[in-house]
């Protein structure tokens, strides 16, 4: 299958421009996004995958519906991590001058020592933003760095993301993700926060918010609770824009924003769409649906 991550900066700029033509209000948030992405793309090549399995072994994982990190340890070089973190914070501050000053000091914070980082990573293994925020508050990292725990969690995840992506790319070169049909990411086990219907055939492609793996998942099934009762699945869209949909499950009451690229007749970059469609999150909440658990997104 065709993959869209990592995108070229040119393409990102083009798509962002396309959105800004319609909605200038998103200018600054897109600046922040682009700043973060530039750092991530830049370091992606520097990071070596830590989990190296053969094609045969990977196929066995896939056959058993096991995601890679379920029993493989992701190794993160603390120094590099800290560097990325610093760059990301800097990029945010640059794109958004009103961001807290203290962001610039986060990467040097003593609280992010080796021990804490390793513990952090374990928390991350739980894939729960709340857990991470509790940890941050418990260790008083937020107080000491004068930063809100949500911000800290966000930048930490953004800085970890390339490590996951590097492993994802390694896996992807050996096995095609089109043979993975589970609701969770084949690499890190995370869920998706946004999906698209592929323009070529309409198949639903989920994208992991953490490692950016893209894989096909059946249309007529809820990726959060595996409900496949067609009477309990539906979607809504804002009148006039049928291509940007919110798919909801009446069983688990969760929602998944979905871009129908078959209607748009072109494949879009989901991260950008995720930001541009934050009004859909608002609408979904109003309609009584919950977002997927633990996802970290810029919105």
């Amino acid at each position, binding site marked *: 299958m065709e993959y869209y991550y990592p995108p070229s900066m040119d393409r990102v700029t083009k798509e962002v421009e*396309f959105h800004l033509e319609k909605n200038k209000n998103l200018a600054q948030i897109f600046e922040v996004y682009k700043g973060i992405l530039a750092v991530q793309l830049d370091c992606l090549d520097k990071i070596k995958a830590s989990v190296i399995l053969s094609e045969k072994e990977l196929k066995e994982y896939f056959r058993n519906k096991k995601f890679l990190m379920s029993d493989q340890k992701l190794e993160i070089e603390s120094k590099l991590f800290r560097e990325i973190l610093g760059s990301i914070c800097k990029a945010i501050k640059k794109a958004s001058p009103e961001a807290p000053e203290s962001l610039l000091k986060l990467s040097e914070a003593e609280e992010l020592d080796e021990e804490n980082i390793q513990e952090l990573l374990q928390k991350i293994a739980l894939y729960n933003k709340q857990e991470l925020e509790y940890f941050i508050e418990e260790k008083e990292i937020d107080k000491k760095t004068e930063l809100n725990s949500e911000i800290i969690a966000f930048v930490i995840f953004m800085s970890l993301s390339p490590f996951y992506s590097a492993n994802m790319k390694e896996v992807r070169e050996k096995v095609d993700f089109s043979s993975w049909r589970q609701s969770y990411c084949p690499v890190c086990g995370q869920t998706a926060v946004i999906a698209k219907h592929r323009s070529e055939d309409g198949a639903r492609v989920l994208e992991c918010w953490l490692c950016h793996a893209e894989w096909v998942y059946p249309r007529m099934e809820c990726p959060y609770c595996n409900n496949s009762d067609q009477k309990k699945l539906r979607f809504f869209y804002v009148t006039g824009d049928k291509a940007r949909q919110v798919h909801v499950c009446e069983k688990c009451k969760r929602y998944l924003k979905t871009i129908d690229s078959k209607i*748009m*007749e*072109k494949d879009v970059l989901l991260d950008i769409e995720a930001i541009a469609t934050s009004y859909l999150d608002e609408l979904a909440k109003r309609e009584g649906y919950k977002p997927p658990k633990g996802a970290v997104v810029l919105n």
Partner: protein
Amino acid sequence: MTTKVRLIDVTKCVGCKGCQVSCKNWNQLPATPTEFSGSYESPPDLFPDTWSRVRFNEYDDSDKVKFYFAFFSCMHCSEPACMNICPVKAISKNSLGAVQVDRSVCIGCGACKGVCPFSVPRISNKMFKCTLCSDRISNGMVTACAKACPTGAISFGDANDKIAEAEARVTELKNNGYANARVYGKDELGGLGVVYVLADTPDKYGLPAEPKVSLADTYFWKVALGPVRTLATVGLAAGALSGWLQMRKEEIRKEKEGKE
């Protein structure tokens, strides 16, 4: 924005007419009453409500019967004769390359039809023809015909990419023994908005081998339309104008015939 082209690879077409039906569907055009015209080709021509069609051609070569299919519609010329001749400037070419008619301005005089080297425009009080799905392509979509095509015979995209694709395909065809294979529409009339990959000579698909804007036709229409611009500016009702034009057209034709 870069110019777009519609690429027709006739070697991939199976003549299902999905493009024709899809064109109707997208443009919400009613069915044109048709009659059997002697082959699978239907309708036999373009109509005000039929902007595209597949041409069917059959040839009995010594060892093999050839059954050719080719989509045909407006060629969206880079220098549209219809646009240049239009007395009321109702025809324009947009930045994507689509030749469009503004029917609120069009007076239905038919000059465009007279000079079109492919005889595309159709008149029913106003001029009607393929719009290259301007509404779709300006939103980044492909044309309805391209979208409907089940075999990839019709595609749509940036001119440079599509021309390169066409040339590569022609090379492939030539290597596979199609000596007459060629790209059509790249150089014709200074480049068309529709490019074909042909496996045989253009005439075999019903395309003019060397399309030309006829100077005689142009001259004739220039003469015929001489006073129209003035009339239009003084605000003669479009209907009356078109009626007058019809008369004038007849007059000039007779004059011309008389001369010959």
